[in-house]
């Protein structure tokens, strides 16, 4: 499998990052960071190899893992702190607000976590972050309808 061929003169040569060697990048390859495309490109003197594609995926995966890890830690803490409360009002605490502060990148994880117990309470966070609201007023007291509504929204927007 080959990535797109990019003219090598567009990049500055520097010594190849050794971590890329695990992905099958030749030891004599060079790498460069393309700011515009936000990817690292490894290339040899002859052509851009498939490693370019692998490196891009690897760096993106690292970024998602960081947000996911932060969310998981906050969500666990939030559940411990507020799971005993029967009002959404009392479930919005500092941990909940920290989740909101993670911004749009956390939305897929919120949507996934809807399915867990207590997940319907992410309704407020999702509303604030996405600035959308797929839940009608009469469904606000149904955890089932809230979960279904946001899940459908997430699928429609290709987030889950």
């Amino acid at each position, binding site marked *: 499998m080959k990535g797109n061929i990019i003219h090598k003169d567009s990049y500055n040569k520097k010594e190849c990052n050794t971590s890329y060697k695990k992905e099958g990048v030749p030891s004599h390859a060079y790498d460069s960071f393309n700011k515009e495309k936000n990817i690292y490109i490894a290339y040899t003197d002859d052509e851009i190899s498939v490693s370019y594609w692998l490196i891009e995926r690897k760096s993106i995966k690292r970024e998602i893992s960081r947000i996911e890890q932060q969310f998981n830690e906050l969500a666990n803490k939030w*559940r*411990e702190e*507020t*799971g*005993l*409360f*029967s*009002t*959404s*009002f*009392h479930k919005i605490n500092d941990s909940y607000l920290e989740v909101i502060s993670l911004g749009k990148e956390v939305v897929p994880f919120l949507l996934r976590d809807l399915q867990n*117990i*207590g*997940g*319907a309470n992410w309704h407020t966070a999702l509303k604030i972050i996405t600035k959308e609201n797929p839940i009608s*007023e009469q469904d*606000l*007291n*149904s*955890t*089932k309808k809230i979960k279904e509504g946001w899940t459908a929204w997430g699928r429609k927007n290709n987030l889950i």
Partner: protein
Amino acid sequence: MIFQPGYIYSLNEHSIKKHFPNLTFESFKYTSEKTDDYNCAAWSIEIEDEWIQFRDPKGMLDVSITTYINYFTNLGFSITNDKNFEEGVKKIAIYKNEQDEFKHVARLMSNGKWTSKIGDWEDIEHDTLEVLADRSYGKPCLIMEKRKD
């Protein structure tokens, strides 16, 4: 109640220590697994598929004790001083915090004990109202009763 093997309790030693200083394992028993299908307000009137809570005309969540008292009053409950079981009478106990915010409601059972849905967590049967009092649930502030149909 016997739970599935591997069931992870939400109301556990750690959360009891954190939230319920008066609760001991001798003073309650579990009566359901955790679920978010219903909350304490729904459980107090024996509903198991609704998360009962209220919003003001602007759509903001409303946890004032007055709102909850009015809700139960509209269902036919009235305030009483008697928290003992009486045949033919349903009784509930409402908890509030120092800010007069609703925190919890429990329902009296025919054996004289109380049943509570602990938020998203398990239902429990507990000996007294006081075992859930202080810290996270505030204190029980009043009893309401309603004649059964």
